[in-house]
């Protein structure tokens, strides 16, 4: 009994990318990610370079899950934002429903600015991801007809 898959359509993907690009400019950030709470990367924008975005998404999700667990132990529902400040690079994470908005920034920006801009777009992102999570089953799923041969071919 797995959950219903999340389906991200091309139009939705480009809408999200556009919002992240705008946020990146407004907050003078290096990289912005949207990931789900399970650690799956939805979209990213910015100076990726050699950044291992998959690992970052997974670790951010683990981080939010761990602090969320601590929040519940002290009677809070969750901690809606997390910040980690390094000597040069910093990370700010906002929990938006079942998704995480992750902003990586350096001395060209500041935690205050990133917090402010992240909060300003969170409602817009919430509306977009609500549409994604409401989309439900895909009537034209390309996987409805997966054969055993298709699956076996992955391991050959």
């Amino acid at each position: 009994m797995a959950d219903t898959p999340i389906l991200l359509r091309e139009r939705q993907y480009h809408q999200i990318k556009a919002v992240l690009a705008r946020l990146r400019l407004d907050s003078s950030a290096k990289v912005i990610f949207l990931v789900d709470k399970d650690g799956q990367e939805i979209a990213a924008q910015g100076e990726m370079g050699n950044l291992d975005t998959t690992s970052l998404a997974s670790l951010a999700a683990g981080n939010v899950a761990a602090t969320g667990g601590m929040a519940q132990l002290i009677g809070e529902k969750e901690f809606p934002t997390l910040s980690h400040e390094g000597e040069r690079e910093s990370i700010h994470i906002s929990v938006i429903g079942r998704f995480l908005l992750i902003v990586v920034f350096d001395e060209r920006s500041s935690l205050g600015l990133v917090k402010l801009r992240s909060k300003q777009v969170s409602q817009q992102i919430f509306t977009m991801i609500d549409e994604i999570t409401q989309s439900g089953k895909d009537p034209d799923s390309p996987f409805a007809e997966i054969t055993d041969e298709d699956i076996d071919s992955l391991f050959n």
Partner: protein
Amino acid sequence: MTFINYASREINCKIVYYGPGLCGKTTNLQYIFDTTAPQARGKLISLATETDRTLFFDFMPLELGTVRGFKTRFHLYTVPGQVFYDASRKLILKGVDGVVFVADSQEERMDANIESLYNLEENLQSQGYDLMKIPYVLQLNKRDLPNIIPKDELAEELKRKDEPVVEAVAASGTGVFDTLKAVAKLVLTELRKG
């Protein structure tokens, strides 16, 4: 939870390796990491203690190939096996698409296997899953050791449904990819249902 991205034509699925402490969960991932082409996998992230015991989780993304024009990526996780890390184990099961239970075949670890299996059922339930319905594979690990329980006896004790059972020696790679293949197949088969 499976994530299907139509824009980048990717399917992402989450597999969790579960089992008692020192049963070989991390060793499974380490073997996959060591023997897979670098372009097919990402880094192996291990959040471990100073004595190399898993503290929170190990994580490795693995790309298997293309199905119906979609790249299939599996995110492989292990849980910390030690009993007192239960809160972490629950968190890692969130959004899981398939589970591998790695059992330690040694006689003296039988109680630990059973305790861990009950713990898996409970923790799945607390996240809204049912072991009887989720894609699930049982791996009998450490089959090379002298003091092991015979396969049929061990499987009879630990089997919960008609799950595939794979004998393994994770340290040398025996059964590691058979296990991965079995669970990946169950997860992808689940996608047929939408």
